[in-house]
């Protein structure tokens, strides 16, 4: 078994129009910038994929990564908790123009819905959002005298994930708070594609410190020294550069 992929173009080859794509990261930490840019490259070359539904905590920052994906016109709908950032101009303009649909989900509910999708739990109850606009239309039930909102699982066709180390079996470790949504999205997607800073031999990650066991991963591509979204934005980067 060898889940290693030769390059980024191969890694994003199977993503089709209309798919739901989970993209890891919280702001820039743990964001798979290179995978996203490879997907944009494919769209610019072929016109596909488009009409994507993207799941991410945020809505991109500046003109790289997720913001660039939106700016390229590939995203029909965004499911996120916090579509604000230091420079949210791309999403904000698309949203105000009615060019992108937004499903706003409380952050903990978003995380739990994704985990539920990966764990085979079609629905669960949470106190979060009870009595608020974000609970509208959702079933409510009382347990032990307290009201709860029923939330549904969230699954994806593909997850694009950033990890630190990976092996050919798909075992992964992360780097600090770059972990965030990434391990959950690995669980919830039919096909999980991971960029790692280094591919190591099986056993190269301590079995006690494997965060994502390989069963949740379908492909691993090595991207040494990956870009950080914040560094790109501080430098005023735009992707693709030609669009600047």
């Amino acid at each position: 078994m060898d889940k290693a992929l030769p390059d980024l173009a191969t890694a994003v080859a199977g993503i089709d129009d209309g798919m739901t794509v989970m993209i890891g990261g919280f702001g820039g930490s743990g964001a798979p910038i290179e995978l996203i840019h490879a997907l944009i490259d494919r769209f610019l070359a072929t016109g596909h994929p488009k009409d994507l539904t993207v799941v991410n905590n945020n809505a991109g920052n500046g003109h790289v990564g997720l913001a660039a994906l939106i700016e390229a016109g590939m995203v029909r709908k965004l499911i996120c908790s916090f579509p604000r950032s230091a420079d949210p101009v791309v999403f904000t303009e698309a949203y105000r123009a009615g060019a992108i649909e937004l499903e706003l989900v409380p952050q903990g509910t978003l995380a739990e819905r994704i985990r539920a999708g990966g764990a085979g739990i079609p629905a669960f109850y949470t106190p979060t959002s009870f009595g608020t606009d974000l609970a509208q239309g959702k079933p409510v039930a009382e347990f032990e005298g307290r009201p709860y909102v029923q939330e549904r699982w969230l699954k994806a066709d593909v997850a694009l994930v950033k990890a630190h180390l990976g092996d050919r079996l798909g075992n992964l470790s992360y780097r600090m708070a770059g972990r965030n949504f990434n391990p959950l999205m690995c669980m919830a997607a039919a096909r999980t594609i991971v960029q790692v800073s280094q591919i190591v031999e099986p056993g190269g990650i301590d079995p006690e410190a494997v965060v994502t066991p390989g069963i949740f991963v379908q492909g691993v591509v090595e991207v040494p020294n990956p870009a950080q979204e914040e560094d790109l934005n501080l430098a005023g980067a735009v992707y693709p550069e030609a669009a600047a």
Partner: protein
Amino acid sequence: MKLTPIKLNPSQMAWRAAQDIADGAYVNLGIGFPEMVAKFQPPGREAIFHTENGILGFGAAPAPGEEDWDLINAGKKAVTLKPGTAFFHHADSFAMVRGGHLDVAILGAYEVAETGDLANWSTGPKGVPAVGGAMDLVHGAKQVAVLTDHVTKDGKPKLVQRCTLPLTGVACVTRIYSSLAVIDVSGGRFVLREKLAGLSLDDLQALTGATLHLDGPVADLIVPEL
């Protein structure tokens, strides 16, 4: 290989089941006979074995005296590490099971119905009931296979129209490796795929509690001596 025996022994059933496990498959083997499947992986194939108690990709049993009792499988038997083994807690382990991430689960059975219903956890109100992970395993794995003698020790069919014992799961079994045949469970019917060459279809049907349907040719069930 010699002449086909009257019925397969457990090693031979396990061997036959192992032939259907693809390279790279994620597999959970139930306690007892199904555990033997791991021994018969065809050369060149590398399945990854999952155990409910939180290990993926473990190796074979250690030599006697080399056991580490923190490194056991769901049957509480000692196993070993392999490069790429991963540990995780029980909720993550059953996320793998329930979330549809396993390719194959192979379980034992008291009864399997043509509906795919399985009974394998309770022989009735007598005795102490114990379910373990069986009810979880029958949901989620892409293939739920059963490894079982074709009939009980008393000669009664274990493959039946409707289970009489308490159910483990409804409409969950997809394939049966019995001591006499390989049978798919599909659309509420038993579909015969392979049978021992020395056994007529009529004789096999007589030992089966529900109709065996044919859907294409029936191959000979051929296994090595084990």
